[in-house]
């Protein structure tokens, strides 16, 4: 190990070693929606603010991951209709007790898919898999063709058309990992909702957590574990996600597809269909030209 890695040690006193798979386990039941991860990410990665736009329907004014927002905390606000009644119109019990209502928070991030569609789409080889098994856009190679943006099944990666003209997304703090530091968002998370570590260890931790929550009656399951405790979802096409989540409502509620599909599987079938059509078309054209000679 180099001196840099010796000096800085990951959570649990374990060094971050190239060759292992690293990722995030985001336990949404621990998230308090403080958005410290968003801020830490912006600060560490020198990302610009996106302006002060108010959505008007939610306290979440970030709304979405983008080229310049690599962590985003969703505020899923599940409220009764009465929430939107004027306060005075409510009965005393309605004013204070709303047993069915809840806020779900989820700190969303690039999933660092095992079979990453953005990587498979990239025609320049700019998007690579690093020695930490994360997915990284090499900024000095990307030419901003935008195909990765259309390929990502989670709407994560984006071309910064106003700025650099290149694709940007979470790097899983590649620069920090290199120096043996955990990513900024995980470091700053005050409730350990975002946990960083080797994926196999995170999965083990997540399993225990799911069992614990279920024992308390909370319908927890994992999203992105590639089959482990994935109830309402399926990410096996992508081979699982290195950044996976613990959810307690259906995936769509968190804006995640129930079945994450791998777009590149359409390449071979599509080309085959086109090839068949091409042969038929060329033959038909030749015949048409021959018949009219």
């Amino acid at each position, binding site marked *: 190990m180099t001196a840099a890695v010796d000096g800085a040690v990951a959570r649990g006193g374990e060094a971050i070693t190239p060759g292992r798979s690293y990722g995030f386990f985001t336990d949404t039941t621990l998230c308090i929606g403080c958005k410290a991860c968003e801020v830490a990410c912006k600060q560490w990665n020198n990302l610009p603010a996106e302006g002060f736009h108010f959505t008007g329907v939610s306290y979440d004014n970030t709304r979405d991951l983008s080229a310049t927002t690599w962590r985003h905390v969703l505020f899923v*606000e*599940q409220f009764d209709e009465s929430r939107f009644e004027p306060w005075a119109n409510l009965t005393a019990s309605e004013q204070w007790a709303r*047993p069915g209502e809840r806020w779900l928070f989820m700190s969303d991030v690039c999933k660092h898919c095992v079979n990453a569609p953005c990587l498979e789409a990239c025609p320049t080889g700019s998007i690579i898999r690093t020695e930490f098994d994360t997915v990284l856009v090499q900024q000095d*190679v990307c*030419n901003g063709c935008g195909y990765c943006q259309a390929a990502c099944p989670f709407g994560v990666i984006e071309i910064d058309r106003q700025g650099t003209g290149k694709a940007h997304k979470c790097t899983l703090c590649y620069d920090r990992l290199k120096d043996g530091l955990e990513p900024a968002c995980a470091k700053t998370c005050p409730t350990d909702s975002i946990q960083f570590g080797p994926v196999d260890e995170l999965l083990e931790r997540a399993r225990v957590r799911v069992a614990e929550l*279920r*024992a308390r009656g909370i319908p927890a399951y994992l999203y992105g574990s590639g089959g482990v405790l994935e109830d*309402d*979802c399926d990410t096996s096409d992508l081979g699982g996600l290195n950044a996976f989540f613990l959810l307690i409502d259906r995936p769509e509620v968190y804006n995640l597809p129930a079945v994450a599909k791998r777009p590149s599987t359409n390449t071979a079938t599509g080309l085959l269909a086109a090839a068949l059509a091409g042969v038929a078309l060329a033959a038909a*054209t030749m015949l048409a030209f021959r018949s009219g000679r």
Partner: protein
Amino acid sequence: MSVAQTETPYGQARIGLVEPGPGQVDAQVLDVRRAGQLAGREAESYQGVPPVKKAPWEWYYIPVYFWVGGIAAGSWLAAAAEDVAGANDRGVVRAGRYIALGGILAGTGLLIADLGRPERFLNMLRIVRTRSPMSLGAWGLSTFGPLTGIGAALQLAEDVLGRDSRFGRLSRGWLGRTVHLAGLPLALFIGGYTGVLLAATSTPAWAQRKLLLGPLFLTSGVANGLAAVSAVVNARDSASPAARRRLSRAGALALGAELLLESADREEASKLPSSHRESRLVKTTRALMVGAGMIAPLALELVRGIAPLGKERRRRERERWALRRARGRRRRSRQGLLAAGLTLAGGLALRLLTAHEGKVSADAPEDTWEFARPTSGPSREAGVGEGGPAAPLPYPGGRAAAPFHPGGGTAGETAGEGVRGEEPEERRAAD
């Protein structure tokens, strides 16, 4: 203990207890999940934020590139077919070669202009990635492009130095034919890969039509390329009437195939919700595209492909054309130009509409939910929601340990998944 489905200003939200008291968990959890499932997966999203991002391409760059790329492919096919199977009419071959080069040059320019960093376009040639149609397309362009250049150079030599010069003979002879045949598979690839490029994305409206977009774009490209050649020879009166009939016949075939594929494609596209609430403008454009851009030119080309009937008439027509040429006169065929123009407009409309559908679809969460709908598994069947039998509790791994398991009924169904849940290492081992 109420579970309710309710409309909020930003969509539908589900209400349910998060932590019910002991002993009540089962029914409650089941109800909460079923309430959502029965409401249908289309119902919700995160505040209407699109779950996938649409392609960042400008409509005047990429769809237009698809169009001119298709034209290049089709015109190359026209030149090759005239050379190999037709009578090697120089008017057709000349137009085909020049249009192919022009289309490729224009298309490459449009593609580069749409890059976020145009000066880095050569980075596309760093790697070959067979899973990425974008990468394959870059290589297709950079191999077909030079071939169209060679074709055009041969044609230029033939035109400038004379048809019976050394280069003119090569151009009309074995070298020209070899270049035509070598470029033919590449031309067909350029015509078809653009549809596959759209299909291999996470944009629901495109990925849904994964088998159809490639053939549709290719067929349309061929029809458009034949039309472009036909437009030139009809405007310049530069091909024999027989060669024009050949072009029309092939064009009619391609248009017929395009029409069939388009109807199959509509069928497939209509499986997504966003296709059922298109604007009037889009509907009108599509109707015009099919009516004026496919059916009308199909009818015209069918007629032009067989008219005039009778050997004597055809001979006279040929003589008149030869006379015109000998006198250096040209007679523009309005009918031929109309058919070609309509076909070309239809082809452009097809690309623009397909691109537009993709943008709308990527912005519509319900399209992604429908596209990403689970199709199998015990918890999946109930999810589609026709008020069927109660959904089994979807907690395979944790069920045995949890105190709230429903006890019987569905245990057998989920046993297999339960085993999977015990082995978190399984997924990594497969890597």
